[in-house]
């Protein structure tokens, strides 16, 4: 082992690795977006005016908003019990959050297909019990995409929410109770506002995750409700227009960069407090 004389040398391998394998190739992708098929900004013009691409952007934005809202609501309620429940409740909830978290996105999407597809468990039961005569279409549409994404993202929202809830001073809640506020009022007017920075942070994380989502929408959307990430895949591999795929990637990267800058600004004062 050669003797290390300067600690700065420790930084070089990973930084060099990232620059070579990530930063430079990303510049290459950005170069595609302004050179394929011809030099100029035509691909960005297409991306921002073409009705098909615009409708995909709009759908992506709408699905991400719905998914973020549903994920935060569901995650908040389950995290509440994870942090403030009895010992047994905490243990059970922890398992319910951690087990899905460690299971691959493919397996989880497959689980939803098994549950929701036309020959899936829900439709089979509903038909056997006589609730339905025709199977209900629950996947290969936007509903399936939203269910799958919310399921994937709940654990990711639970971790920041839990740390926000653990920071709440119990005595404030007791004081509110002592002054005669009902349970509901303590929750809505004391507990939720005190965890608001955590909610905002978790919402931003979930939204950023949802924006770049590819696997779940591709499997549960069945090609019918295409989102931005899947559009990139289609433009690279199925009906090739590499320039457009690259341009959409750059737009997506800029959007996520902007949101993360917002997250940093939001996180800093909280950390300083």
């Amino acid at each position, binding site marked *: 082992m050669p003797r290390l004389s300067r*600690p700065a040398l420790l930084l070089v391998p990973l930084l060099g690795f*990232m620059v070579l394998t*990530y930063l430079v*190739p990303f510049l290459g*992708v950005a170069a595609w977006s302004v050179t394929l098929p011809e030099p100029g900004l035509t691909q960005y013009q297409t991306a921002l005016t073409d009705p098909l691409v615009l409708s995909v952007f709009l759908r992506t934005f709408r699905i991400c908003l719905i998914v973020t809202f549903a994920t935060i609501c569901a995650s908040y309620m389950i995290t509440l019990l994870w942090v403030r429940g009895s010992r047994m409740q905490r243990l059970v*909830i922890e*398992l319910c959050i951690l087990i899905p978290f460690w299971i691959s996105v493919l397996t989880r999407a497959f689980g939803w297909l098994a549950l929701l597809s036309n020959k899936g468990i829900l439709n089979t039961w509903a038909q056997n019990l006589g609730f339905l005569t025709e199977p209900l279409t629950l996947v290969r549409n936007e509903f399936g995409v939203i269910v799958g994404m919310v399921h994937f993202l709940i654990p990711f929202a639970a971790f920041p929410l839990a740390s926000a809830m653990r920071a709440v001073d119990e005595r404030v809640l007791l004081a509110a109770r002592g002054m005669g506020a009902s349970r509901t009022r303590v929750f809505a007017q004391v507990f939720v506002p005190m965890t608001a920075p955590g909610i905002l942070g978790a919402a931003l994380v979930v939204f950023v995750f949802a924006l770049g989502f590819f696997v779940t929408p591709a499997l549960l959307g069945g090609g019918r409700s295409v989102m931005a990430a899947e559009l990139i895949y289609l433009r690279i591999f199925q009906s090739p227009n590499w320039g457009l795929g690259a341009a959409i990637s750059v737009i997506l990267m800029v959007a*996520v960069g902007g949101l993360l800058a917002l997250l940093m600004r939001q996180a800093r004062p909280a950390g300083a407090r």
Partner: protein
Amino acid sequence: MITRPGLLAVCVAALVAVFLLMPLIAVIPVSFTPTRYLSMPDGEWSLRHYQALIDNPAWAKGLGLSIGIGVVSAVLATSLALAFSLGIWILQPRFAGLLLGIALLPMVAPPVVSALTLYFFLITLSKFNDFVAYDTWAGVALAHSVMIAPYAVVLITVALAQVDRRIDLAARGMGATLGRRIRQVILPSIRFGVLSALLLTFVLSWEEIGVTLFITSVDAVTLPRLMWMGLRDNIDPAIAAISVLLIGIVVIVILGKTLWLGSSEAKAK
């Protein structure tokens, strides 16, 4: 704790918990269906899809490839991340934020953008060699290393934040060289952080699909890639069988860890 959640809150949380577990439980009966397509077993249960996992050599090949790529990329990513995090911890450079930003880039960028970037990288490499290239195991291992290294940086940096700087200063004051400080003072205090980084990066590579989809086609077919092919068009119930096995492993590991070590919260107290 005195202000416990009320009955309503418990019921809503229970519903969410059911929602979280439902799709994982749903794959179990489906994996025993006797038919060739996705359906519930109708009275008759069969093990044919588990048999198919053994009979079709593609599954064993995918398994071997995924383990190999996971080990190589986890070791590479964790080594690079370890050196980097040590460098940041020792130097505390003023521009540490910027350096960390570069190191964490693949973690925060949208996965599909990373996938396209690595696709560009590997098809460019393909023009110069056949080993580290598009649709080769070495290419996939390299791309996975890029994607998982940031997670190792985070875990090791967190472990380093708990090391008492004065111990290192004492070693330095007594004349220990940098290599010796790292090997005999710092590394022993962060060995659990490094081990968990190795484990996490292996798992992340093991289940990586977003990037893998862009950089492989027919030769470097990892286990997730194989599952993707069985899910995309006609759903193959063999996917249910493999899913049950994968879920089983996760449940056993998590249950074992939680019951053995106690929940993370009990530890915190």
